[in-house]
């Protein structure tokens, strides 16, 4: 078969950035990122076997880099949760017109930002 060198769609570089497309890819990216949370869960459960391991786990969790990761997880969790509910409503046939889609999109982003800020504040001593 002859190799096809013609341009392949979609041409991501020439597409205009839109709220809908950015939120769609962000849903997938946060979903993939959230999967890593299972590693933290398993590490926590395994560390509970003895006090030294638990101390080690706590030290890792309190490391600044881990803290940044965890804030990212909280953000992703709220984003994936609220945008997921938006997706479920679409699947049931609600809010599919352009105006409502943009409105719910901005709503999801606002809820995510506010919820992330307030929830992270709960953990600051």
């Amino acid at each position, binding site marked *: 078969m002859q190799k096809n060198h013609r341009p392949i769609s979609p041409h991501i570089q020439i597409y205009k950035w839109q709220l809908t497309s950015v939120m769609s890819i962000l849903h997938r990216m946060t979903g*993939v990122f959230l999967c890593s949370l*299972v590693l933290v869960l398993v590490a926590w*459960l*395994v560390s*509970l*076997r003895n006090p030294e391991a638990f101390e080690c786990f706590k030290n890792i969790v309190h490391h600044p880099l881990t803290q940044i990761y965890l804030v990212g997880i909280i953000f992703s*969790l709220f984003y994936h949760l609220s945008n997921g*509910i938006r997706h479920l409503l679409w699947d049931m046939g609600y809010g599919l017109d352009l105006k409502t889609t943009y409105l719910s999109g901005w709503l999801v982003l606002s809820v995510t930002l506010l919820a992330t800020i307030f929830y992270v504040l709960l*953990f600051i001593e």
Partner: protein
Amino acid sequence: MKQEKTMKSLVSSAKYLGSAHSGLHHWLSQRLSALFLVPLIFWFLWQLPFIVRADQKDSLVWLASPVNMGGLFLLTSVFLYHGSLGLQVILEDYVAHKGLRFLSIIAVQFAAICFWMTSIVMILFLAFGLPSSNVSSY
């Protein structure tokens, strides 16, 4: 087109393998697990501030409560199921090489089962472990 020498009927070669007829099941499973995750995530977000402040002993006491143990059991199971379904869709969309796509999906499912087994065994092991949780190692 030249007719190949084969036992395959013309209709069957035109249709090739066709649909696996499991697409709807996958679609529905992903949505139902998402719906199930909503209350579980709210429960988790409510419990997390207590968990992060707990020491090892308090954490074991928390885990030994039937409600918390059951909640974590369900959350882990549905989380991993929903996650592996989601990763499968992403791999199907972006991995162009057929063999690599198949292998990566199998790897994701294998990893999900391993993580599920590890977390469930650990939850049961810790919750039904020695009643005195001040024992240094068991």
